[in-house]
């Protein structure tokens, strides 16, 4: 009798949870250039505006191609030469949870907070995770440009810095997160070299050494977590 009660209760909880955490699909809103997607277990097909992309779909963009996806209450611009997998899009009583996996390339996310319904948004990559709430940012796995809101940028081995709206930071080859520099978000990470120059000139000492030193190219990985 007791076992039957427990089993019934467990089934009720499972059914209730399923009802509360509904899986959402992403929707293709805008397309420029060549964009394809692969549904789970199926072949590649060209994307069209209005296509509904379920969990497990892989989106791929070509040269000079972008696609704008609406993912729950958030939007994601998938930049050229990017491959992105939709890992999870859940709507529950506790809010909306989105997990994307960035295999290669760059994304720009606009995470819109909703009153009384928290939004958790994560972009993972082979070496990094971006997780934000109520924030707009651009991220390529090493370089971070925050358009509004604030993001905690975390290097793989622990160092963190807060990067606020209109600031840029990156993880240097020595594993450190550079001090954020105030920059204009205009142009985004397309002009990452200029942004790195600005960040470096902010942290540089006043006494210059001359032309013998080259700015190192960042190659380390980052993790971004919610502020």
């Amino acid at each position, binding site marked *: 009798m007791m076992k039957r009660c427990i089993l019934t209760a467990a089934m009720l909880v499972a059914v209730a949870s399923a009802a509360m955490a509904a899986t959402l699909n992403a929707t293709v809103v805008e397309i420029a250039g060549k964009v394809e997607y692969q549904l789970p277990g199926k072949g590649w097909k060209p994307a069209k505006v209005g296509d509904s992309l379920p969990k497990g779909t892989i989106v791929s963009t070509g040269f000079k191609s972008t696609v704008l996806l609406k993912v729950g209450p958030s939007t994601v611009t998938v930049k050229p030469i990017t491959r992105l997998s939709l890992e999870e899009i859940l709507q529950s009583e506790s809010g909306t949870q989105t997990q994307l996996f960035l295999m290669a390339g760059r994304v720009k996310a606009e995470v819109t907070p909703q009153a009384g319904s928290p939004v958790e948004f994560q972009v993972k990559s082979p070496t990094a995770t971006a997780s934000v709430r109520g924030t707009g940012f651009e991220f390529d796995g090493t370089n971070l440009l925050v358009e509004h809101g604030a993001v905690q940028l975390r290097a793989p081995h622990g160092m963190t810095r807060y990067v606020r709206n209109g600031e840029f930071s990156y993880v240097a080859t020595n594993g450190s997160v550079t001090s954020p520099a*105030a920059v204009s978000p205009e142009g985004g990470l397309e002009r990452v070299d200029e942004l790195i120059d600005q960040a470096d000139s902010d942290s540089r*000492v006043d006494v210059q050494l001359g032309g013998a030193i080259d700015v190192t190219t960042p190659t380390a990985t980052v993790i971004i977590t919610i502020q």
Partner: protein
Amino acid sequence: MKRHTTSLAAFICFVVASALCAGNAYAVDFGLTLSNDSELSGGGGGLSLSQVDDAALWLSLPIGASSSIYASAVYEFSGDFTYLPSYSDSVRWYSITAGRVEWEGFVGLSDSMGLGWSVGRIPLQDYSGRVLNGLLDGATVRLSVGQAVVSAAAAYTGLTFKDDAPILIDADDESAWSDDDAIFAPRRLLASVGLRLVEVVPFHDLGLDGWAQFDLDTAGEAVTNTQYAEPFIEGRVARAIRWRLWGAAEFGQDPGLFYGMAAGARVRLTAPELAGLRVTASCVWAGGDYDGDGAMRAFKPITAGSLSSVAGTMFTDALGASLDASVVPARGLTLGAGCAANFRPNVDGEPAYLGFELTGRADYKPAGDVTLTVEGGCFAPNGAADPEASVEWLAAASATLRL
């Protein structure tokens, strides 16, 4: 020079062979950087031209998954031509030397710990860049533990051209500096330890740099060892304002004990939306031997530096204040202007104000591989402080092409 060139060639061969043996030839990146720096200066009826032409061949390749090697060799022509009051020239038709040669890497030791290193002819400087700033032969290690970064470094100065590491700590150094036959910097062993705490105070870093130099030229008139402790703080106040403050205490033995003090501060206002406006106010001070007695002496950094661009006032027993502004009116073009005033202590009743400097600068990058710079300035000395001093001026142009 020949021996130096041979060593350099051997090193580059070693690097290339290592790359091929490691199977990384496909990942080798290399290039050639050509640059020209011309400088026309005058003052007190004098007129002189200085020209430096460099060709730097560089190579970069990964070594394993977590480190890389960068090597560069530099050919340089340099000439100093004095036209007034009488013509003379000093031309060095060629020098071939190693530029930056560095094996650097970073490995994670755990989720919260990482170890970075850099070995070779590498850039070394203290926090402020006022105590040490040079491309020296040595090594650094950095251990990152969460929000703390512990660093250590060691270097040797004796294989660096003296122009690249101006060491003027004692009388022997000054003799070597003025000796045309002395090519390399005085032989010093440098050691350093440092700690930086990243954003332990919101949006602010705290730290302490410690540097020491040991005089290896024991045959000279003096053997002078010095140590420096340099605490600092830097941070952001809102988005637009960055500031930093540092101090340095120097302790020395020659063999008597002595000490010196220095400090600096900088506030920078950045407004990217206003044509990239950046305004920087800074002030640096290096203490002097104010009473001519006792243990306190004029602050002597490891590598000497000047207070401002045109004036020759050195960073010892002096104070400098400056205000600079720059804007980016068009993509790739940066225009800047600055002013600075230099002072010295007026312990003997002499005027403290040494003079005022105005500078202007334009940087243009029409493409990522090309940089053109034009700059100029003048220094108006205080006649009351030095009746023989006259207005000094400088005009310079440089061009860099990266192939």
